[in-house]
């Protein structure tokens, strides 16, 4: 049973107040005090309340994922008399930004007027509104504020079929409430996009909290006693002090027709996309809830093996590529950033784990590339086979001239130094496909300096210093992709560039040369 032993507490305090009737063990007293203080944490939820108001009628949460920010809009029914009405709104121990609290009159905007808002110095997490009303009526008001502590995250489950050509993709959204407040029957909207905030909500809350600490330090003991008593009273009245999700508290109702998954409507606004969850949800403090946002079957995926050291590291990466568009059974909305768990179905309908990856924000029509790392059944190695130099120039100190050593006009000068040369290198890119499926590979090579690359491979320039080589390998095939580079060095260097030249390259045989 979960109630605070009020009688015991009272007993305890009475005894304490009656002048050390018992000799308490100091450590035991401190233990009890700590425990009591811990139990007081209960009080910290459900503290947003207007002193004269009933509970919320409706609440809407707009949760941003780029910042720790949620816009809460709640409506309440309020009885107002003719003349000046003073309303109190407090939010102790929640994550609300005090600078963002706003009041709006929904039902009688013409008859009501907010005269002023008072932020009492001694109670930082509280405000008073003075409302001038020209009628006596039951009025609907809307209170809106920013809070931190509520977040949402997208995550994905990708299941690749046995053939490896199609994938089923589930997109989920998980909402987590650590705001200190329970939100029941809340309409939820999720915002994807990068918004600009000049101050973080959390910092604003902390600022207010620090302020409060300064003020209340002297009054702490009294406040704790009050809270403790209040909590005890609350517990006595409540059979269970648990956070219970209301839809779980009762046995699930038997419905006439089967309930379908909630529809999550996608809409766009300025630079943002908004996911609106159908109906309402209950999200108590400290709970998370995960809902499926979309499900797409038979998404055509392409598998490419890429060597891109700058992007992926020094290995041949197995990359899955698909497009967020209609042709791929997607494209309904942008895909928010989130973790994706990739699995592959095997013949027994079981799932083999591939990787847990990060899916970046993907616009409609944009490509998604998922690097699943090294496939150990596809070997890749770059080997430098042979190097040599030619077109060597010497710099003669005497006369300050440069001469090519093989031009027949060489001057014997012991103090001369090499000033320019061309470097030739042969490389082989060994690829072996140990899988039984055909694969395609893309190799990017960064070539520094003034370079000419000679080869008969499918090669093209990616940028002025990088080339990209493409090839296809059948299951079990091995390929030796050869190319030769000629790099101008020293005074032969003109500018950083890469020139492509179609030329056959032979594998060197290191045979015996004619000597020096």
């Amino acid at each position, binding site marked *: 049973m979960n109630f605070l032993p009020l009688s015991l507490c009272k007993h305890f305090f009475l005894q304490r107040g009656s002048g050390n009737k018992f000799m308490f063990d100091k450590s035991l007293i401190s233990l009890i005090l700590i425990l009591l203080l811990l139990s007081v944490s209960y009080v910290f939820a459900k503290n947003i309340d207007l002193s004269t108001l009933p509970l919320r009628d409706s609440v809407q949460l707009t949760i941003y994922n780029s910042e720790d920010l949620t816009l809460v809009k709640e409506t309440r029914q309020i009885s107002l008399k003719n003349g000046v009405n003073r309303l109190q709104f407090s939010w102790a121990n929640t994550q609300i930004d005090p600078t963002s609290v706003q009041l709006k009159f929904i039902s009688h905007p013409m008859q009501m007027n907010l005269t002023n808002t008072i932020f009492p110095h001694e109670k930082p997490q509280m405000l008073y509104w003075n409302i001038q009303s020209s009628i006596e009526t039951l009025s609907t008001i809307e209170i809106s504020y920013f809070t931190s502590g509520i977040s949402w995250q997208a995550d994905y489950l990708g299941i690749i079929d046995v053939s490896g050509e199609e994938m089923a993709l589930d997109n989920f959204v998980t909402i987590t409430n650590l705001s200190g407040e329970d939100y029941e029957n809340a309409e939820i909207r999720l915002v994807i996009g990068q918004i600009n905030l000049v101050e973080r909500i959390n910092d604003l809350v902390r600022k207010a909290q620090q302020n409060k600490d300064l003020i209340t330090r002297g009054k702490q003991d009294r406040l704790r006693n009050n809270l403790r008593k209040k909590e005890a009273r609350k517990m006595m009245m409540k059979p269970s002090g648990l956070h219970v999700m209301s839809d779980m508290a009762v046995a*699930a109702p038997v*419905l006439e027709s*089967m*309930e379908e998954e909630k529809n999550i409507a996608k809409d766009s606004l300025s630079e943002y996309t908004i996911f609106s969850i159908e109906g309402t949800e209950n999200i108590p403090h400290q709970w998370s809830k995960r809902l*499926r946002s979309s499900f797409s079957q038979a998404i055509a995926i392409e598998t490419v093996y890429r060597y891109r050291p700058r992007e992926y590291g020094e290995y041949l990466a197995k990359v899955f590529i698909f497009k967020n568009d209609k042709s791929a059974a997607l494209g309904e909305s942008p895909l928010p950033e989130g973790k994706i768990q990739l699995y592959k179905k095997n013949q027994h309908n079981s799932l083999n*784990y591939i990787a847990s990856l990060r899916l970046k924000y993907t616009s409609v029509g944009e490509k998604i590339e998922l690097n699943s790392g090294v496939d150990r059944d596809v070997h890749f190695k770059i080997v430098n*086979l042979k*190097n*040599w130099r030619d077109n060597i120039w010497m710099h003669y100190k005497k006369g300050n001239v440069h001469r090519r050593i093989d031009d027949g006009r060489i001057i014997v000068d012991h103090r001369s130094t090499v000033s320019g040369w061309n470097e030739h290198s042969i490389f082989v890119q060994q690829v072996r496909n*140990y899988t039984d499926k055909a694969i395609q590979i893309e190799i990017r090579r960064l070539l520094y300096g003034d370079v000419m690359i000679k080869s008969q491979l499918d090669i093209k320039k990616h940028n002025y210093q990088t080339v990209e080589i493409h090839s296809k390998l059948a299951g079990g095939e091995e390929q030796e992709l050869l190319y030769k580079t000629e790099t101008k060095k020293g005074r032969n260097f003109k500018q950083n560039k890469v020139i492509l030249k179609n030329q056959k390259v032979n594998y060197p045989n290191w045979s015996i040369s004619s000597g020096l």
Partner: protein
Amino acid sequence: MKYKTLYAVAIFILCLISTNSYARIKLITLPAREHIEIQLENENITIIEEERIVPLQKGNNLIDFSWHNTSIKPETIIFRVIEGKDQPRANILSVSYPPNEAALTWIIASDKNGSAIVRITYVINHLDKEYHYIAKTNADETLMDLNQYIKVINQSGEEYLNAQMNTGLAKTVSLPMRLNETQEFLNYHFENIPVDKTYTVNAAELGYRNRTQDKLNVLMHYQIHNDTQHNLGKQSLAPGKFRIYQQDKKGSLVFAGEDWGQYTAKGDKEKLYIGQARDIVVKRIIKRKNQQKINGNLKNMDILLEYTIENFKDEEVTIIIEESLEYLRNEVLPSRSQYQLLEWQVGKETNFDRKPIKERSNAQTIAYAITLPARKSGEKVVKLTKKLNINLKNEW
């Protein structure tokens, strides 16, 4: 007495705090597992797939799944309803995660009353596996029998009785895994695998057995081919320790050595270092180095390496001589002013019978294979002298 009361108060309050997070309304907890598959195929990850039959009522059902003290990775949990005839159609409406608990609740809508077969898949930590191999070669080291063992170590906090181990082969192995239990099983047995036995020397990488006498280390390797032609190739070979035993002439087994086997894809080769050969002696000396100035600071270097090889074995052996040109350059030109790309040619005094080995030769290394005749009883051991003439070019 008074202390006791106070302790009671303390414990009572403590209980009060703790029950706050633990007591939840639980409607359906999952029924017992019908079938469990432990997937050991992935190198660093173990996946559990469990099948359960869940009674569903028409309407919304709450299914509670908890994993207290178990190393399940919660973000990997997948709930799938296996479609079948007469089974209710089920929709997962949402998943709720209670605070401070290793648990979740699925809200599942069903179109009728009935039992659904569901599969729950997740990644689990601390349920690890290790591969190791026991190999037995015949007396002349030409054929090998190989056993692959898998050791499964369960420290995951959960027991999996009736578990089927899926190791990537067509069949699964039935193995109950209790808490904190380690079990080992024979996953595969291969017979009559042809073995290539090689000897290698490489001054730079494998070093000297006796530096003052210029005697090189001679390393002995076994090479096996993971393909069906070589009686292997059922699946890739996972990394693990290979212990190699050899049958002696009396038929008993002698431990010959061990090595860490690398991951070997189907169709690839596995090379295992077994030990050093003492009955093959290879001496390496730099017989000549001759610097030839071209002009100014530009020069060539003519080097003659000499290998003297003796085979004290009663059998013919093939040895691979590898030479690292970078190492050689450092030996003959230790004080170069700046690093230049290595340019070299094989000179005409080289007297190896065969061409360089393509797979082992590149811009930094050259490798030759030579066959050494067996020692003939009563005769003197044949001493082979092989020359390698290297011209380092355009150095400055």
